[in-house]
């Protein structure tokens, strides 16, 4: 039987779990961090960029120590339409100065580093262990079960990612449906640092975040991304899981398609694919969020649905870290009161509101509906590209003024001005 007991058991050594473990251990609270991968990060992937502000708050100037790739100094959004593409690019050198705005990174190294910070602070880290279930006493969670072993705790923090079995077993949410999820695929392609800097016009150390909408998803809701690392490129697609199922497209084919786009192929040519992975993205927004706490349990990060998917961009690392921070602070309060009931842990909600996670989730709460607006993935990229291509093409045919061109293109793109204005309104409110 269970003779070991901890104040807190954290399931999952991703950014949410390791942050919570780090903060609790730093306070001298005995915490066990359990990760199913052989090492933290070995099973994790993401697009490629983390916003810095939250981690800087917890570990000031973490960039001095953490394994990071490049500071992002340029953002580009590209609308793809077959052989045509149109981009908006924005560069800000201040983004590449301390406190850096965002970094590209590779999860295997970053997650291992963050977990090591927790371990060094005194957390007990157990890797290669999969938690199978929670132990309940009445409605209260009193520990976890991994294989034959049972370990007790005052509080369990579910930080086990998008497909959280802990929150499911704890009865905080029902099984996820494909409608609440997107599937992400990603490849890491190796290229010499110098080649990357030349092709993307970068300084050593600085990088670019490149997002794509349009034909790369064959009209399915989602988008593509490309991030520059030190000597590799992370690229991939995020596509609504239910659509992928319905259309029976093979992810491999879609990625190969994406890579062969004329505006992408030259950027990666000669590179070797060294990694290929797929992962789920929660995308139901706050409507799919589970109950965030109950007696003896808190839910953080992707497990709580704290992830924003805008189709062309996924953002979850900073929210995972911030929610891990809020969870840790809630546990600290609970320790003081020696009360781990739902009532006591409820402070979590307030802390999330204060530290920015909840406001962000609310601001973007309409994003899921916007994402379902199919025109975003085919009609509009086509419209924009046709408009620009016509504008730039001089072939001796009589000129048409811009408004007439737009009207013509809107007509060609099987949409209407009403739709266009409606979607723009939706977009403005959701983003």
């Amino acid at each position, binding site marked *: 039987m269970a003779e070991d007991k901890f104040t807190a058991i954290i399931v999952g050594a991703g950014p949410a779990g390791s942050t919570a473990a780090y903060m609790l251990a730093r306070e001298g609270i005995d915490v066990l961090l359990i990760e199913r991968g052989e090492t933290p990060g070995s099973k994790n992937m993401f697009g490629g960029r983390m916003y810095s502000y939250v981690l800087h708050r917890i570990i000031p100037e973490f960039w001095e120590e953490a394994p990071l790739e490049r500071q992002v100094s340029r953002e580009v959004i590209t609308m793809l339409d077959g052989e045509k593409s149109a981009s908006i690019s924005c560069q800000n050198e201040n983004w590449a100065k301390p406190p850096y705005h965002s970094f590209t990174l590779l999860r295997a190294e970053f997650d291992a580093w963050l977990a090591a910070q927790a371990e060094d602070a005194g957390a007990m880290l157990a890797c290669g262990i999969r938690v199978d279930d929670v132990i309940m006493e009445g409605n209260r969670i009193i520990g976890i079960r991994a*294989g*034959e072993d049972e370990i007790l705790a005052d509080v369990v923090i579910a930080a086990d990612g998008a497909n959280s079995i802990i929150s499911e077993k704890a009865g905080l949410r029902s099984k996820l449906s494909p409608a609440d999820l997107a599937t992400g695929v990603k490849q890491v392609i190796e290229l010499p640092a110098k080649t990357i800097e030349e092709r993307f016009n970068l300084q050593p150390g600085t990088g670019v975040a490149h997002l794509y909408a349009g034909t790369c998803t064959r009209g399915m809701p989602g988008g593509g991304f490309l991030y520059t690392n030190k000597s590799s490129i992370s690229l991939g697609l995020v596509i609504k899981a239910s659509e992928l199922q319905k259309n029976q497209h093979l992810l491999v084919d879609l990625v190969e398609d994406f890579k062969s786009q004329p505006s992408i192929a030259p950027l990666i040519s000669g590179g070797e694919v060294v990694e290929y992975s797929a992962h789920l993205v929660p995308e139901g927004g706050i409507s799919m969020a589970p109950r965030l706490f109950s007696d003896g349990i808190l839910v953080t990060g992707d497990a709580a649905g704290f992830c924003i998917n805008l189709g062309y961009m996924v953002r979850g690392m900073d929210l995972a870290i911030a929610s891990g921070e809020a969870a840790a602070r809630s546990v600290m309060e609970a320790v003081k009161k020696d009360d781990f009931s739902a009532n006591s842990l409820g402070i979590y909600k307030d802390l999330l509101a204060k530290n920015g996670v909840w406001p962000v989730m609310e601001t973007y709460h309409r994003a899921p509906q916007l994402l379902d607006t199919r025109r975003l993935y085919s009609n509009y990229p086509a419209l924009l590209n046709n408009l620009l291509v016509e504008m730039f093409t001089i072939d001796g045919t009589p000129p048409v003024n811009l408004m007439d061109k737009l009207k013509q293109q809107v007509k060609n793109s099987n949409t209407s001005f009403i739709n266009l204005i409606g979607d723009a309104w939706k977009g403005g409110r959701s983003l």
Partner: protein
Amino acid sequence: MFKISLNIIACFKWVVDHEDIKVNPETNELVLDRAGYRISDYDRFAIEEAVALSEQYGGSTTAVTVGFPAAKKSLKDALARGPEKAIFINDPAFANLEPSQTAAILAQSINNQEFDLIICGEGSGDLYAQQVGPRLAEHLNIPCASFVRKITIEGRELIAERRVDEGIEIISMPLPALVTVLPEINSPRVPGLKDTLAASKKPVVEITGSDLEETVPCLETVEIKATTMERNCEKFDANEDDLKRFVEVLLRAGVID
């Protein structure tokens, strides 16, 4: 079965995970700076055998490694596999030892320990020199059997089934002794959560380079280059036409008649 009580030492090495080894295509040099490390695969069998024997006959097991500071990470993993304690012989200078040095360092560190049996892997995952075990036996002046696939203890005698080129040789030798074991000897257990938790409470004795006499390498590395294997790399599908074409290619290459 009556208890004999054996003090067993299992030697393991913390080695670079070969799947993480990258090659710089311009220089053909290896890029190891981002590689992960793990307990050498073969040494898991050594640890398991030590633990299994001490469970069977009574006694205790000590896991020993010579390494550089980062190898500290290996101790929890090793101890989760069952040994009661670990000895970490640690020095930044121990990153790239050659077998003669490793054996000498192990010998110095083990010399004042009480032991009945030392178990090594057949070879380390990185160097795979298959030297440290037999060299260590010579330093300690104890009998040795290598490539062992089965061990039994009869009183103060160890009976080993070892592989030789013609088949199997069954030998007996008095304890204390050293064996190197083959993977077929056992199937290492997978540590559970409790094993991992217990591991962090087990004692670790640390010995540093300054506690030992200095060793000088006999071998000097001139260079290390990635191996390349340039091949045709032509792919065929599994349809009839492709397979017939495949057979034709073999015919033309003159490798079948």
